[in-house]
């Protein structure tokens, strides 16, 4: 399940299976995509999936830097497991930890890390999932 799309504005988009993510990363790293700009997880509760989207680009090759390459992959909401890419791209470290905190995605294959953004004893629904509801104050003007 690997598709390559040319989107209108932000260059390339690749869709891969979650199990192939490490391979893909190695491949791209060899193509000089040397850093990760962002890791985004988007929650789709109706379809019971979480999309994990990596945006990677290059610093070393300034021509390649003009492209932001998007790698899309999908994990299930119940078992949001995916292999870590920290060995391939060290720059992903805090992005992955943030995604673990806020979306509850488990990045396997790396040592367990303390919580980054949330309090260390935080429990319950990861805050960025759609099922987490924000309590709002009453508005009294």
């Amino acid at each position, binding site marked *: 399940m690997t598709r390559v799309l040319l989107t209108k504005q932000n260059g390339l988009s690749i869709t891969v299976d979650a199990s192939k993510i490490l391979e893909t990363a190695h491949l791209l790293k060899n193509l000089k995509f*040397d850093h*990760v700009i962002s890791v985004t997880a988007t929650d789709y509760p109706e379809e019971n999936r979480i999309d994990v989207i990596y945006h990677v680009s290059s610093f070393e090759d300034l021509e390649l830097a003009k492209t932001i390459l998007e790698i899309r992959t999908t994990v299930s909401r119940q078992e949001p497991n995916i292999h870590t890419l920290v060995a391939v791209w060290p720059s992903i*470290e805090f992005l992955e930890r943030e995604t673990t905190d806020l979306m509850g995605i488990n990045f396997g294959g790396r040592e367990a890390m303390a*919580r980054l953004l949330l309090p260390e004893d935080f429990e319950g629904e990861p805050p960025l999932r759609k099922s987490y509801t924000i309590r709002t104050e009453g508005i009294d003007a």
Partner: protein
Amino acid sequence: MSEEQTLELLIGPQHPGSGHMRLVAEMDGDVILNFEPNIGYVHRAVEKIAETKTYVQIIPLVERTSLPDTANHNLGYVLALERLLGIDAPLRAQYLRILLAEINRIHSHLYGMGIHGNMIGSTTMLMWAFGDREPFIELAQRLTGARLSYSYIIPGGVRRDLPQDFRNDALKALSYMERRLKDYDRIFVHNPVTLARLKGVGVINRIDAARIGVVGPNLRASGIAYDVRKIEPYCIYPDLDFEVVVRDEGDAHARLLVRIGEIEQSISMIRQILGKIPDGSILADRYLDLVPSRTRFEKRSSVKFPALFSGLKPSKGEAVSRVEASRGELFHYLVSDGSTHPYRFRIVTPSFKNLIAFKHALLGQKLADIPAVYGSLDYFPPEADR
């Protein structure tokens, strides 16, 4: 090494030199063996709040991630939103956007330099830099009506036109700043004590910089000429003549010098903008036409929002934008499901990307280098936590 020989030092979150974060340093004598930043003390869940707000309401929200650098954050978000909406701003509005962005870059860099100076003990640099931000904040205030939280850039254009006398005032402020940069050189930048503190400290070499993905002036101080304004020019940057400031040393002092170089570049850019800003409308015609003719823009210096802005509905899709904010590359990713709220809003701020530099630049350095390197990274905790 046995455990008794090392000392775990918890710097922050309540510490004059830590900012809104905790730095965990494992020390062997005066040498740092291990360094781990612990952030999240000012996490405000901007991404989650954005999912409950309409697209225009998010404009002030994204600014709150980084108050010293609001214009660039505002611009980055609006560029992504405009790509979703499929709309472009008129040329004059593009010029005004970059004008504000560069004014903001100057006072944001001054903020960083001031804090950096204070962190290694030069209170004079702190006071001077903060005092010299004032002319630029005043300029921005005359343009936008607010001192820091401008909310100036809106989808399809900007909110206000250049006030009268702005050009003269701005030129005066710019030549003042050039004069002041020489003062900074004497008392801080080339002060022998500063040189001793910053030269060769917290070095990130070229290869490491690319590998750990630092951004902005910190990346350029390591010899990589990566600047979004050149790589993927947005708005009117292709028309402006400027250079990417690069240094090879990769140390704390190089980062300071890159910032000063960028202030000089911004000064020259603002001069160019003021010189060739075209006349014309400042909001896209598509929105201008929606406003009642009584309150049309031609009759006043600021635009009226069309009623549509209270519930903008972009078509289903995704958009990314990257801009060069003062602290580095700022990345926005918007997912729309066709409703009035974004389905997912992702914002990766430059400070968050620079956080990793703490872990790498400080290993093997001395305890006293922590503030020296911290300041040189121009790291702004609320921007990283979002």
